């Protein structure tokens, strides 16, 4: 028995387990078409009718698709693969680089092992859940087209697998890149900077490539009826991103706070001191939080925005409305490939020139993309009379006299041309830039808000906290103004058309916003890579040996790493605004899909919806209806409960780490530096507690829309989503910006103002940073996927909600009111129980926490 247990715990067994799950996931996906094609017993005449209409790979067999469109779709696939090959090429470059001294390699290995252990453990925990949800998605399918039953479930699996792959590869590369950046810093600034950035680019291009590949393949398989499969694909990515964000956020901050509490506060030892048992866990945390978590988060934004655009594209402009977002994404991938390769630095550059190079890369990518949107738009977005005849809903998207009546700015005087989708993409690019600048303004040391915080530190801890709240609150208003302006511009672009077309415009803005995902993720991942490289330099460099070999080299290398760390902090902060903004844009777009499904009563009938139906149902989601208002209130409260759970989880996990570090510090040999601490123990504690703690918030995210929907009905669920989107966005921006501002105010003081490190002002700044840490790195970022998971759950469950809610159920043919009520109540009770358990779980007191005072 013991042998069996040992085997199960062994590294090999874990590997086999992971490979097994991977095979299962892959097989599940590739199996799906055969499931879909399998002849199903006809439950009703309607089902039979739909089976007859549905054809796999319709874009290649349906005559309404032109040859040019078919070639375009193939070209998009090739571009997606090219993005992946580019990522592979960069990964090879990174792995081929010098790996430094043995000591540096040992430290990097410890970080890598910790990061691998974390993701392995997470995969083990959520793998079964993913399989369960896959089965549930298949079983609970309420549509009439059987092909979509497993299409939806299979796409969910693939979405989850892709999201996990992006997180895993991003983290793996980061843990390989950090060592090589530290080694390269001993030779040249440019080499180190380029390696760090390219490490991030691998993850960025993987996100681009997989996101585009997934969306395109689903469309090729399911055609204009890909709605269900796309939702499954988006939900898979989003759910994994939520778990990665939540788990990574808890891990990174628990390790950070635990390391600081014992190291800096109790023992007064510097950060990254090898005697501190939590040091490696702290570095691992940077990777699981900022690499795996953020990469998965942006990947799901990438997925969800394209899912939203494709769904709305189908419901509005027909297949042209679907193919154009894919084409735009293809251009974005090309833009990212070209622009990320231009990011370079010279051997003696500084952080200013390096940052300039990164920003120049972003601008080059933006210009390529914008030119690409318009050229593609001019060539492709032609709506001739035959197309409008085949897609009558599309006609509503034009002024009364048809495409010819569009103003000059929308068609450049060419009859039938419609450049509005390209224009809304451009709005998205501006939105990304606007949010970048705004985040930078509120969190960068060169601007007034952070300076005001640093100054507030001179009068004490409380004034710093008060000022931080003020800065954070103000930043939410500014962000709302920017997002609302971009939505308003989309409204203006589609003036005179029904709301569904405006929603398509908003979705296209989301597409434009995330066009340069490759660059965005490169910038984000560069942050933790540079941070870790600095830690490896601190722990792994041999100053005397380096000076002996080349006088001045040690100091120069440390300066390079410090500069890169500073550049990484800036680029990382800039991308946070995009992550939050994209969540809102995607959520707004999905909200329109939500109304569309209510309007037609079933997901697979969405392309049969009329504009009147949409307007009628949209009008019912009003706060004048008390149930909608209640839903709105509950939706607004959920992000607070979710944040509370995460912040408590960080505190609880930190307790365990503090206890372990204290025990290890009692070993005099560890304290004297003659014996290596057991880093693995703390890594294990972080890994296990983070996995344990993510279940509660995950349940809240999945169960609360179900509870509201089944208890209060679909319109209340609409209210719930609206409240949740608004409050979630405000809270996420507040937490990210206030936390970022507190962090940088501390850095500003440490760089030498108001007394520098160790001064009274510094102590106040440390307090602010400590308060802000779980806000900006745990709760704030996790709200992005929360918003989308709740939207996705609501959309996926909407068919069931319409059928089984206890307020106004649409009783199925052959069903009875009593059985419908019972089913509804079972779901309500199960959801309520799960939420109650999650809340109870988040408040429990641990014996470990109690024993800390002993």
């Amino acid at each position, binding site marked *: 028995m013991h042998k069996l247990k040992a085997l199960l715990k062994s590294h090999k067994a874990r590997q086999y387990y992971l490979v097994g799950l991977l095979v299962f996931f892959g097989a599940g996906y590739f199996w799906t078409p055969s499931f879909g094609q399998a002849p199903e017993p006809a439950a009703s005449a309607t089902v039979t009718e739909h089976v007859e209409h549905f054809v796999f790979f319709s874009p290649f067999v349906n005559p309404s698709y032109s040859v040019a469109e078919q070639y375009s779709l193939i070209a998009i696939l090739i571009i997606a693969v090219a993005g992946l090959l580019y990522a592979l090429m960069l990964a090879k470059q990174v792995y081929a680089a010098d790996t430094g001294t043995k000591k540096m390699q040992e430290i990097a290995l410890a970080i890598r092992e910790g990061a691998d252990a974390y993701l392995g453990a997470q995969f083990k925990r959520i793998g079964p859940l993913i399989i369960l949800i896959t089965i549930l998605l298949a079983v609970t399918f309420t549509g009439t087209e059987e092909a979509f039953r497993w299409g939806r479930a299979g796409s969910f699996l693939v979405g989850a697998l892709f999201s996990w792959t992006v997180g895993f590869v991003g983290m793996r590369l980061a843990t390989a890149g950090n060592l090589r950046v530290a080694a390269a810093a001993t030779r040249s600034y440019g080499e180190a900077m380029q390696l760090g950035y390219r490490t991030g680019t691998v993850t960025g291009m993987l996100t681009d490539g997989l996101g585009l590949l997934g969306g395109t393949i689903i469309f090729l398989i399911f055609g204009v009826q890909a709605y269900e499969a796309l939702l499954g694909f988006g939900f898979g990515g989003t759910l994994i991103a939520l778990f990665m964000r939540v788990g990574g956020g808890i891990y990174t901050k628990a390790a950070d706070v635990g390391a600081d509490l014992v190291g*800096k506060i109790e023992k007064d030892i510097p950060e990254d001191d090898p005697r501190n048992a939590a040091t490696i866990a702290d570095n691992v945390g940077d990777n699981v939080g900022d690499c795996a978590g953020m990469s998965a988060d942006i990947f799901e934004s990438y997925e969800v925005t394209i899912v939203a655009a494709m769904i709305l594209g189908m419901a509005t402009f027909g297949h042209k409305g679907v193919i154009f977002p894919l084409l735009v994404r293809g251009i974005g991938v090309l833009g990212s490939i070209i622009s990320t390769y231009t990011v370079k630095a010279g051997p003696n550059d500084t952080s200013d020139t390096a940052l300039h190079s990164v920003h120049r890369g972003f601008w080059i990518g933006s210009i390529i993309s914008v030119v690409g949107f318009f050229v593609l738009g001019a060539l492709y977005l032609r709506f001739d009379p035959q197309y409008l005849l085949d897609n009558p809903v599309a006609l509503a998207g034009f002024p009364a006299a048809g495409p010819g009546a569009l103003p000059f700015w929308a068609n450049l005087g060419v009859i039938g041309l419609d450049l509005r989708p390209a224009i809304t993409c451009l709005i998205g690019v501006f939105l990304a830039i606007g949010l970048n600048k705004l985040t930078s303004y509120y969190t960068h040391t060169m601007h007034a808000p952070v300076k005001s915080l640093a100054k507030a530190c001179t009068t004490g801890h409380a004034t710093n906290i008060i000022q931080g709240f003020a800065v954070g609150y103000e930043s939410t208003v500014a962000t709302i103004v920017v997002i609302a302006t971009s939505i308003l511009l989309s409204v203006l672009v589609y003036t005179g058309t029904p709301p569904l077309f405006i929603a398509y415009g908003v979705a296209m803005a989301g597409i434009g916003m995330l066009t340069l995902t490759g660059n965005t993720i490169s910038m984000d991942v560069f942050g933790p890579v540079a941070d870790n490289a600095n830690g490896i330099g*601190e722990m792994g460099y041999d100053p*005397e040996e380096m*000076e002996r070999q080349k006088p001045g080299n040690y100091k120069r290398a440390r300066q390079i790493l410090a500069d890169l760390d500073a550049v990484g902090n800036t680029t990382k902060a800039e991308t946070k605004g995009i992550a939050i903004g994209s969540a809102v844009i995607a959520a707004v777009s999905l909200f329109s899909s939500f109304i569309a499904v209510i309007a037609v009563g079933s997901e697979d009938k969405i392309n049969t919806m009329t504009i009147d139906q949409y307007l009628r149902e949209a009008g019912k989601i009003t706060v004048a209806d008390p149930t909608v208002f209640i839903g709105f209130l509950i939706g607004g409260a959920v992000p607070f409960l979710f944040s509370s759970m995460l912040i408590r989880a960080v505190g609880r996990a930190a307790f365990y780490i503090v206890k372990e570090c204290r025990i290890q510090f009692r070993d005099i040999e560890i304290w004297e530096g003659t014996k290596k601490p057991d880093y693995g123990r703390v890594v294990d504690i972080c890994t296990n507690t983070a996995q344990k703690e993510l279940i509660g918030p995950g349940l809240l995210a999945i169960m609360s829309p179900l509870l509201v929907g089944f208890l209060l009905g679909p319109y209340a669920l609409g209210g719930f989503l609206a409240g949740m989107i608004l409050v979630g966005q405000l809270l996420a921006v507040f937490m990210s910006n206030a936390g970022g501002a507190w962090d940088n105010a501390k850095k500003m003081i440490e760089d030498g103002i108001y007394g520098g*490190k160790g001064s009274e002002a510094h102590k106040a700044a440390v307090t602010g940073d400590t308060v802000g840490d779980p806000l900006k790195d745990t709760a704030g970022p996790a709200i992005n996927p929360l918003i989308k998971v709740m939207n996705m759950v609501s959309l996926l469950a909407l068919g069931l909600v319409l059928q089984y809610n206890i307020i106004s159920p649409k009783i199925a043919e052959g069903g009875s009111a009593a059985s419908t009520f019972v089913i509804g109540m079972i779901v309500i009770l199960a959801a309520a129980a799960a939420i109650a358990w999650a809340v109870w779980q988040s408040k429990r007191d641990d014996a470990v926490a109690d024993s800390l005072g002993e």
Partner: protein
Amino acid sequence: MTIHYYMLCYRFEALVASQLPPDDFGPYMAVGTRKNTQGNTLFFEIDPSLHSTYFRLNDIPNTCVRHPDGSPKRSKYISTYRVLEHLDPALMGKLYLTTADGRVLGLEASQYGEPQNGSGPNLFQELCPGSPMVVSNLTPSAFNTYMTDPNNPVSVPRIFFADLLLERDAAGHLAGYLPYENPEHVVECIRELEANPRKQVKNVARATHLHSFFRTVRRGFFLGDQNGMKFYKFPSKEDLDVKYHPWWHSASESIAT
């Protein structure tokens, strides 16, 4: 086992016998073995041939012995009062600076060459026997002479002090990186000194909490009386960054007093 003598000279003065060598004694004093003690520690290594009629040293070979479990005797306090004045500076060897987390840096005494423009204002941190912070127009050697002059109404027989950084900007404010408590008061004291050239020393604080103390040391440490002065040069920034990196990293990151 060899018995070492140490003189603790920061925050309180004491003569201690120990079986630990300096590199182990420092961490022991800074952090203890099992107790969570904190703070920077400064101590001199005293010549083991120490003989004194003032201190009770006769019993030390019998009391400073290994513990029953074989571990060395870490500290045996000999005196905790007026120690500095009763120790011959010639017997005082290396000065050890220990950070709050127990990193030790030993400094040898060296010749002090008073710079031509060494006069004030200077910021001195007295470390033993008292611990006020003062600003002065005097050079370190003149300050040593002034403070140990018995004709001076406020004097001590022997003094140990450090010379602290005092960079100021064009407006006369202290440089931003200096972590002194109440920096404006430091500036006020300097201005008072500048306004009254006859005043040689101005007290800034009676008992100072020196956050990040080692980060503020300028030229080094001075131990002197009317007969002379020993100088313990603080390493250059270059050497601190490279040769003494672990110590300096610990010292500059620490926020302990």
